């Protein structure tokens, strides 16, 4: 009798441990800061702390489980109806607590103190800090594992990788002289551009161009003299949503007398790009890459047309 009881207890324990083990194996991922998160069951109440994260969650079909987003999350449309937990850099801890999340997706812009606070409160925080397109695709897969939708993640990752390959297959065979110098401008006073280790730099190089500011580190000011000297063949102008400064920046580039000697101005190769699409680490980065491919090599990828998404 005693023996049977023991066996039963052992069996129950075994099943219990096995189950929890199998769960933790399924729903375990290590984030971009090296923090490993185990979830016992797929999260039902997810909070996103950045527009890019929101786009990833919706693209994986987890949209219904998203409880809170930031005020900047405007894509897809459904995200606009979700509760707002603050903007990207200032987040409302109380609001987050009242939403009782079982997974919080933070970003590189989430303040460290906020992450520490959230973890002290025993909340599951997973941080996405991607610096390259490949890393974003990896992050998408990690989120799909945590969310219990691994197959959706793999399918999405595969689609994105294929689209990327379609572009790089064509641009890889270009010779150096076939790659035009591209200058990406973010602001004019001072002139502010994207150097290496930025998504913009990756778009330009993967799409078969040379980034004029490729030797600068990250986002940086740049001497206007140097831009004239390096003579860009193409200029891409960031269009930030809603503000009035985008037209001002475009006007500056196309009308300022100091820009007139550049090939890009002479040949009218100045293009607007949507800042939401080109700067958010999410599935739309591939769309951004396609845009840059069209801008830089229309003969290979077709004509680029700027559409204001709003």
């Amino acid at each position: 009798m005693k023996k049977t009881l023991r066996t039963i207890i052992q069996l129950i324990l075994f099943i219990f441990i096995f189950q929890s083990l199998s769960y933790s194996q399924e729903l375990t991922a290590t984030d971009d800061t090296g923090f490993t998160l185990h979830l016992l069951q797929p999260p039902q109440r997810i909070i996103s702390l950045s527009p890019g994260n929101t786009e990833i969650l919706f693209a994986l079909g987890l949209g219904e489980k998203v409880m809170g987003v930031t005020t900047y999350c405007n894509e897809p449309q459904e995200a606009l109806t979700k509760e707002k937990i603050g903007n990207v850099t200032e987040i409302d801890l109380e609001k987050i607590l009242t939403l009782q999340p079982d997974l919080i997706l933070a970003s590189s812009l989430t303040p460290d103190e906020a992450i520490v606070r959230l973890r002290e409160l025993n909340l599951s925080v997973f941080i996405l800090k991607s610096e390259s397109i490949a890393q974003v695709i990896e992050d998408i897969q990690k989120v799909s594992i945590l969310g219990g939708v691994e197959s959706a993640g793999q399918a999405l990752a595969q689609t994105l990788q294929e689209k990327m390959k379609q572009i790089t297959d064509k641009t890889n065979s270009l010779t150096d002289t076939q790659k035009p110098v591209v200058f990406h401008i973010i602001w004019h006073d001072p002139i502010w551009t994207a150097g290496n280790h930025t998504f913009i730099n990756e778009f330009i190089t993967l799409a078969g161009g040379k980034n004029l500011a490729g030797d600068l580190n990250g986002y940086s000011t740049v001497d206007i003299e140097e831009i004239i000297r390096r003579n860009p063949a193409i200029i891409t102008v960031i269009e930030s949503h809603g503000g009035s400064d985008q037209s001002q920046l475009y006007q500056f580039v196309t009308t300022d007398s100091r820009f007139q000697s550049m090939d890009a101005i002479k040949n009218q190769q100045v293009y607007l790009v949507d800042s939401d699409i080109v700067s958010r680490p999410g599935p739309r980065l591939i769309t951004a890459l396609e845009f840059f491919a069209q801008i830089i090599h229309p003969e290979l990828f077709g004509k680029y047309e700027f559409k204001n998404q709003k």
Partner: protein
Amino acid sequence: MSSRIRNNIGKLKKANVLLLLGIVLALGMMIALGIGGGRFRFSEMILVFHYSSLSASERTILFDIRLPRILLSVLVGAGLSLSGAVLQGLFQNPLVDPYVLGISSGGAVGAVIAILSGISLGFFTIPLFSFLFALGTTFLVLRLGQIGHKFPLETMLLAGVAIGFFFSALISLGMFLAGENLHQMVFWIMGGLWNSSWKKVLAILPPIAITLPIVFSYSRELNAFLLGEKVAESMGVDVEKVKKILLVISSLSVAACVSVSGVIGFVGLVVPHVIRIITGEDHRLLLPASLLLGSSVLLWADTLSRSLLHPVELPVGVVTSLLGAPFFIYLLRRKKRER
């Protein structure tokens, strides 16, 4: 050391000091014209005189980028140091700088409002707003500090400080609310001569040109202020009128400087002190000498800011403060040791 310098310079005539500073400035402008792309090229310095032999991009670089930038730094440096010298003389306070009446925070509030509201009247929206707000702040402070028909300097100083704090809070609020426009504000407040254009040069030339003769004509009255307001009054100086005119006119040129270059620290505070250490307190020499030295200092600070990390550009306000503060401390220590 400074007493020896003072003795030596005392032997020089006023004209000689000014001539020397003038030559230094002119040479500096010539050399700065040849500095670009992170190095100095004698050929570029000379090529300016061979306009027809230049390519289109060389012309743009020399005449549309370097030349207006050099002139703008010279004008802003002149405006800030001259106002600094005038206000220090007027307030008899060594800590006074051109922004003491809240002009810089007023100008910054104007810029922040222009950026936040998204009002666009062309490229001059932000400079125009900051100019109007800077001037408006001055008049507000003058009004607040005024008691009857008098302008007691202490009240004025306190009113300026209080308004400055209030506006700083508004600026912080604006930055908090700015979201994606934050970087524009941060850059504006840091102070820089990036994106200098002929338009900006032409915009600040009139206010500074008006300021010079008026301020210089009050050198003697400022000398009388050295002995205190009461003594000045007994010497026949119309103290209240002088204060009013000098405060308004120097604010005009500071507001113009702030509107095109943001808040550039230290030049207006330190340059007059350096001149005082070298030449003494006589405003007939102090004012023009401060103007010339201020121009040279900002010219070189800006040249450094665009060459040090080339092709990255640093904010010139950071360069002036980083280099200016240690130099000033050095001067103070030397002066102290002699006593």
